[in-house]
């Protein structure tokens, strides 16, 4: 299984914000979820991959080709869905299809049309009449129509209702049935990524906090729920963050199996990606 995307030591310095030494890999046939709070660097990372901004350091390769040196070849392999629709309000899906067919050498009009019908998008109505969900579906249909091997989606599911999100996640899962395909999706709706992602990279303040297989991550990390006195006797090096409330304490356990062996009397619950984000973010704030 070859890598669809390799990001290595990526750096971008804006002065007030720095994307610092970001590295992760998206293997073929998988979905990589890029999570992190607002301003963590998810969109900046995606912009660097798409060469929308110039990186200050690091390497990015897509299917073994450098994203800058072989830009055109790389972009023929990529389908993109950005955080908001980029199509002119006056255009309709048919016109958009015609435009994109001339921009993407691998364009598949039938595939695009199939997705328009599947998503029940009116082909002759102007984009200005579309809801946010419809615009996002149109962007996704356009991305699939480009016949990409790598789909890159920046907050593509935010603002959509759960039914539509589920429908779209199913399409993503179908897409990666081919081991030659892969998806990088950034989102702060972590429940979506728990459903679909194979790997998760968590960005916090411009740095990679963790980048692992999702199942391994959810199996390794755990949530300790205990009283204040119990928390005080726990070895802090086993915890990645904690919250002390009026009625009890919660803590993020780095390795639940090791922890349970050492503290058999304490209960460690399964954890969600959201818990990991909240503990890390709030822990940092404290």
């Amino acid at each position, binding site marked *: 299984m070859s890598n669809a995307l390799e990001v290595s030591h990526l750096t971008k310095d804006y002065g007030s914000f720095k994307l610092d030494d970001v590295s992760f890999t998206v293997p073929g046939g998988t979905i990589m979820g890029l999570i992190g709070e607002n301003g963590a660097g998810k969109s900046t990372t995606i912009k660097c991959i798409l060469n929308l*901004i110039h990186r200050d350091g690091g390497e990015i390769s897509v299917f073994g080709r450098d994203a800058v040196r072989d830009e055109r070849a790389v*972009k023929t392999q990529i389908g*993109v869905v950005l955080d908001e629709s*980029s199509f002119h*309000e006056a*255009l309709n899906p048919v*016109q958009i299809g015609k435009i994109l*067919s001339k921009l993407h050498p691998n364009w598949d009009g039938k595939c695009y049309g199939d997705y328009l019908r599947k998503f029940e998008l009116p082909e002759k109505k102007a984009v200005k009449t579309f809801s946010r969900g419809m615009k996002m579906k149109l962007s996704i249909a356009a991305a699939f129509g480009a016949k990409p091997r790598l789909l890159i989606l920046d907050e593509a599911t935010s603002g959509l209702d759960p039914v539509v999100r589920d429908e779209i996640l199913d399409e993503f899962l179908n897409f990666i049935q081919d081991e030659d395909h892969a998806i990088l999706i950034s989102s702060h709706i972590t429940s979506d990524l728990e459903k679909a992602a194979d790997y998760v990279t968590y960005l916090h303040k411009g740095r990679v906090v963790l980048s692992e297989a999702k199942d391994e991550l959810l199996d390794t990390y755990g949530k300790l729920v205990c009283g204040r006195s119990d928390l005080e006797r726990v070895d802090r090096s086993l915890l990645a963050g904690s919250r002390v409330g009026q009625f009890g304490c919660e803590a993020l356990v780095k390795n639940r199996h090791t922890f349970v062996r050492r503290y058999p009397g304490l209960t460690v619950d399964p954890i969600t990606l959201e818990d990991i984000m909240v503990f890390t973010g709030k822990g940092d704030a404290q």
Partner: protein
Amino acid sequence: MTGLIYKDLAVLRRQLSTLLVFIFVYGGFCITGVFDFSILGALIAVFGLTVPMSSVALDDAAHWDRYAIATPAGRRGVVAAKYVFTLLVVAVSVVAAGGLMVCLSLAGLTKTSPEDLVLIALACGVLTLLLDAVILPCLLKFGAEKARIISMITFVVIFGGAVLLGGMAKDQFALPQPPEWLLAALPVLCGLVAVIGFFISYCVSQGIYAKKEF
């Protein structure tokens, strides 16, 4: 690149149709004697400047550029398409306005010869290209909103200068007389300056866009 030009045509279809109607409406005004026929030449400059500007303004509003750059067209393709589209608009304007002026001249509705009217249309086309050569890099660097002020200043300086010189000549102000050979070569020289200026402008815009971040 053809996709990007088609996009501009599709997005501006209504505006382009309206502008073509303008040519015929103004043609009617010329026939009835309300305006001089040279007003049709001025329309070339109006179209050649406003259409590329509208195109960039609509791209800005839709955040289209960052999407287009993420396609195989890339930054170079986006700039090249904008310049080809501008050339097309100027060419179509020259043909439409010039053609109408010649038709009206052949129909005996003006005393100006068809050859002179063709020259007027071409001169306006050349001037418009020069103005676009200044405005397009500004549009691509600053966006339509900020570039509008720059384009207005350019327009006022060039046309204001021309009116001022004309007025001075009319008042028999002693302007230096250019040599005969220069006057004879002026149309070709102006054409060359416009083409070279447009090409330099294209290279400058490519440089600007290569550094731009989206």
